[in-house]
């Protein structure tokens, strides 16, 4: 019997269509997951706290705390979404139900499925960044000063940040059991957010030197700082090269670890 020649790209398109169909079905929960955190953060920090007489001091030359929040919260949304988009389903699909098997048994190299997962997770990350951005510009009760200072930097950051998030999701999804997902949020993701230079620029940590060094392990720091360079250049920030190189390094390392973890899980 003659066999169709292998068509890797068609197969990857198939994997993406499947993920897109599932995402469409879960459109509303996806939207709510993405916007809930920035809505609440903006509400508390730019409305409740100022109204109740608790102003958050900001660095010289920065118009408002709401301005500091924009790049940080876009970074959080992208990273959280990309991680969850890959890690949560993968952890289940690799678990007792072995749902992943049908995709793994397609006639492609074993890295194909994790590769497609990273791409689609990154796409969801960018999508959530785009959803959150207008919320952060329009809703804060205080003035927000945002301009795209560098388009190349913005595009680079969107790609690198979402890739890094998805790769971290792949790594976590292959490493943890479905029962440990709650634990993953508590001991990995929540600390990443609070120590991720989301609510404060990295430079302001110079007051606590040991912490300033420790947080350099956190990919979110580079995402937030990189987006600061692109969107709010008046807020103190790291050098562009440092954010790009570190994210590139993290994304590649996490992708490699994630693919290796995936293959370990699907082949006995």
């Amino acid at each position, binding site marked *: 019997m003659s066999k169709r020649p292998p068509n890797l790209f068609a*197969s990857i398109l198939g*994997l993406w269509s*499947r993920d897109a*169909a599932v995402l469409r079905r879960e459109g509303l929960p996806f939207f709510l997951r993405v916007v809930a955190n920035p809505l609440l953060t903006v509400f508390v920090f730019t409305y409740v706290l100022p109204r109740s007489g608790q102003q958050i001091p900001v660095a010289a030359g920065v118009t408002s705390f709401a301005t500091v929040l924009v790049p940080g919260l876009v970074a959080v949304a992208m990273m959280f979404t990309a991680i969850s988009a890959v890690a949560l389903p993968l952890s289940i699909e690799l678990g007792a*139900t*072995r749902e992943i098997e049908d995709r793994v048994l397609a006639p492609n190299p074993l890295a194909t499925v994790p590769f497609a997962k990273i791409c689609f997770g990154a796409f969801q990350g960018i999508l959530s960044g785009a959803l959150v951005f207008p919320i952060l510009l329009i809703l804060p009760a205080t003035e927000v000063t945002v301009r795209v200072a560098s388009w190349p930097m913005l595009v680079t950051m969107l790609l690198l940040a979402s890739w890094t998030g998805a790769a971290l999701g792949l790594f976590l999804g292959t490493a943890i059991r479905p029962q440990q997902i709650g634990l993953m949020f508590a001991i990995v993701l929540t600390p990443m957010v609070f120590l991720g230079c989301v609510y404060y620029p990295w430079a302001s940590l110079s007051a606590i030197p040991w912490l300033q060094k420790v947080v350099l392990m956190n990919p979110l720091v580079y995402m937030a700082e990189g987006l600061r360079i692109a969107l709010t250049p008046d807020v103190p920030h790291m050098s562009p090269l440092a954010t790009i190189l570190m994210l590139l390094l993290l994304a590649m390392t996490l992708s490699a670890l994630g693919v290796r973890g995936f293959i370990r899980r699907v082949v006995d």
Partner: protein
Amino acid sequence: MTNAVSLTALEKVYQGSATPALDRVSLNVPVGTIYGLLGPNGAGKTTTIGICTTRVRATGGEAVVAGYSVREHPTAVRRIIGVAAQALTLDRSCTVRENIYFHCRYFGIGRHAARERTDELLERFRIADRASAMPMALSGGLAQRVQLARAIAHRPDVLFLDEPTAGLDPQSRLALWDLVRSLKADGITVVLTTHYMEEADQLCDRLAIIDHGRLLAEGTPAQLKSEAGGAAAIDLALSGERAEARNALRAIEGVQEIQDTERGLRILVTPERSGVPRVVAAVAPFGLTDLRVVDPSLETVFIALTGRDLRE
């Protein structure tokens, strides 16, 4: 190429395990047959299927599927095989229709052709009315049919079915047998595992009996049955002294083998049932409390080979 699957001294020792799950198994599956791997739980059936389908790496020996070594050309093997796993591995986030449709897409089939193929299979497997159901809502028999439809959606040459009828009611089981036979009629070679004797006997053209990772016997069901010499197995539950019962049994003509069981003794006798009265008379003084006769069948073949009942 006359063999769809050819295993040579296949060996698998799982990481962290001392005993091999497969111990130098060699067998050939002729093209166009329904081939059964028969054995109790833990025999190594799923491991064998896993190696043939590139999901498990053999630690020794060689497996060749449709002419391709699974070690050297796993991707080529995956293109030619279809797999329905022992556990239900349907994609629970997708409908029945999507499970089949996306499977086609994973195999590189274009959208239009994938849609047509999906419709065709939904009809043929009589699951069209449940096309938009989610897998969790399906009964076991229906889910198994969907899994089978999905496994052949890309038109494989060799189909691997791991315990396709485990846990199904008798009616669903018969329906599945018919489907498997119709796949054979389409020219697909089917390798299936089972621990049901009747299934092995009635559905399979050839069988391999495995236990503890070893191949014990191989051949057509008729060959295997005749090799066991047409013996019947008699299970005896005894409350008295077994050693003396053994001696008494040994003296009876036709008793081929005596094995210890938990409740007493099991003997193999020829010819068939005619030996039963003499056996009963012989062991009656040793506290015979129960008796079961297993007529000559694959089951007695299995008992003769392993000293165990498949159900144990």
